[in-house]
């Protein structure tokens, strides 16, 4: 890990150190690979399985959306993968491979504290839901930047200050606000500051956990547009966690849907929107009005998400699923690749033995 700040990649060339092969859309190399990641709350037989054997691949420059209801394990997955899980959360198994710009991949779950500290923020940064809580209330905004730059670079005090100013300007805030405290900024400004902080070291991966949920829709829209622009300019990969599937459809390249700790469907955003294959995804899509276009009738999903302490046997969704079959109550469907398509679904309706209902079939 180099100690100095990397130069900003030029807008036209997003990844200067990437492999020499020509990169085509959808064929970017993976930057973060989560493999069979399981996370429990608590230890022993009473442990709750918050995330079960989740596989997720984030490619360079990709915006990967992770959707699901509250308690589906989407945030737990992100915190577990970055080793930020708080007690009593425990990573029960799996690996999380980070492919740095240069050098061999590192398994974050096996990395030493020292390695991890170097990787944190310079390779993977985060934006949380409430910027007011995520910013230290007693220090100035400038100090937040300064702490990061000091811990990860050898820049002089003056250079750090200048860099902090540039970063603020990048998100449309005047550098004079560096001497403000968090409570002096508006909610939108605070979240912009968080984004500028997250991009301070030009990480390869930015994880955003409900970053716009606490904001009003107008600010939300502005920030999302800015994010896309910044992604295009700086070329980071974005793991965007939200319960708002309609937002993801606009923003993400690919979407993974979680239910009761498992990823139940993963597909390119457009395809997921046009033809959801999992009954749960179908239900979610019909619970939100889309941001653009015609509004289909809202049906919602009957019932409520299961309690982690009593997850139904078999497919956890079966009690709420209108298509549930006998076998759904006995076995857990695997997240299988659908033949001939770049998407996966964990549902027995699609394993060739059952008749696929028309709304879940390919349109």
């Amino acid at each position, binding site marked *: 890990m180099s100690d100095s700040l990397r130069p900003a990649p030029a807008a036209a060339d997003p990844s200067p150190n990437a492999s020499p092969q020509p990169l085509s859309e959808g064929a970017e190399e993976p930057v973060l690979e989560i493999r069979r990641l399981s996370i429990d709350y608590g230890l022993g037989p009473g442990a709750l399985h918050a995330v079960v054997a989740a596989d997720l691949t984030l490619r360079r420059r990709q915006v990967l959306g992770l959707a699901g209801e509250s308690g589906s394990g989407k945030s737990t997955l992100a915190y577990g993968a970055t080793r*930020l899980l708080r007690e009593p959360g425990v990573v029960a198994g799996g690996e999380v491979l980070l492919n740095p710009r240069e050098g061999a991949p590192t398994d974050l779950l096996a990395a030493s504290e020292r390695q991890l500290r170097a990787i944190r923020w310079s390779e993977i940064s985060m934006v949380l839901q409430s910027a007011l809580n995520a910013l*230290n209330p007693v220090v*100035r905004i400038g100090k937040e930047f300064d702490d*990061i730059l000091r*811990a990860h670079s050898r820049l002089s005090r003056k250079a750090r200050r200048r860099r902090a100013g540039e970063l603020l300007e990048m998100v449309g805030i005047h550098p004079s606000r560096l001497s403000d405290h968090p409570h002096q900024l508006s909610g939108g400004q605070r979240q912009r500051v968080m984004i500028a902080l997250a991009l301070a070291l030009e990480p390869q991966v930015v994880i955003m956990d409900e970053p716009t949920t606490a904001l009003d829709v107008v600010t939300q829209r502005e920030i999302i547009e800015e994010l896309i622009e910044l992604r295009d300019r700086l070329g980071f990969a974005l793991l965007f966690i939200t319960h708002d599937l309609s937002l993801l459809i606009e923003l993400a390249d690919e979407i993974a849907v979680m239910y009761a700790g498992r990823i139940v469907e993963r597909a390119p955003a457009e395809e997921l929107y046009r033809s959801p294959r999992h009954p749960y995804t179908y239900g979610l899509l019909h619970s939100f009005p889309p941001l653009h276009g015609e509004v289909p009738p809202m049906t919602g999903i009957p019932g409520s998400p299961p309690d982690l302490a009593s997850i139904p046997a078999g497919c956890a969704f079966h009690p709420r699923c209108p298509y549930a079959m006998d076998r759904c109550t006995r076995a857990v469907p695997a997240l299988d690749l659908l033949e001939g398509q770049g998407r996966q679904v964990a549902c027995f309706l699609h394993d060739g033995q059952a008749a696929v209902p028309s709304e879940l079939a390919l349109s």
Partner: protein
Amino acid sequence: MTTLARRLGVYLLTAWVAITVNFLLPRMMPGNPVRILIGKIHGRVTPQMVRAIEEQFGVGLHQGLWSQYLHYWDQLFHLNLGVSIALSAPVSSVLKQTVPWTVGLIGASTVLSFLLGTFVGTYLGWRRGTVFDAVLPVATFFQAVPYFFFGTVLLLVFASHLRWFPELGAYNEALTPHWHWAFVASVLRYGQLPAITVIVSSVAGWIMGMRNMMVTTVAEDFVLMAVAKGLPKRKVVAYAARNAVLPSISNFSLAMGLLVSGALLVELVFNYPGVGDLLLTAVQNEDYPLLQGIFLVITFTVLSANLIADVVYMALDPRIRREA
């Protein structure tokens, strides 16, 4: 700095009220306090003393209350607080001899106790649920033991039996009180046992307060973010501690305010020549001039401790600065 100005105003008002009450109380008492006082002194009264006492309490002067009040303020500005009956000396010079001892001993031990407790509490809060939590019940036990009792035990064991520490007083009587090394060293040596008493019996409060605030603060998002930022561990702890210490600062100002009045028993046990000892003398002898002087000192300690705490708090918590 309008907040500070406003606070300052409130304190000035409080000081004025306290001083005025101090002036009015003896004048509102039934009977003639002067006669009671003179009766207590059993004939050791000189005519000058009677006049001084009369002047102080406004008896027999045939002056209006208002002119007495103005006179009282005039005397106060000249630090003329009257004459102590029990000690037959001006109250201001008596206070000048005792206040530094109390402020030195109790002030220093309170500051040390606060610093020690805050650091230990920070560590315990950061590493909660480890073996170090065993410190808590031990510290709480000593908090629960009355400190005059604890002081007596310390005296008995470490001074009388083991002879590790000098027994009573504030310095070796063979030395003259003067700013030279031997005297200062003696003061430090004599101060150890009373200071230990104060620290041991008060440190648990600081530890508990800081630990509990740390536990709460560590759960905050900004601490998680500090970890996610890859900041060094000491920096992460500092992020949390800087926020967690704020309630302790308020409590510290309260403790400093009680400095003078709370020292009574420790000073008695160790025969320390401070304000506590003086207060007892004053009460026993119904020495009103002295009592009034001590009350004024207590009032001003409380007010200045609060003022200092306000300034520190404002420096540490930017959110306070603009609040109405």
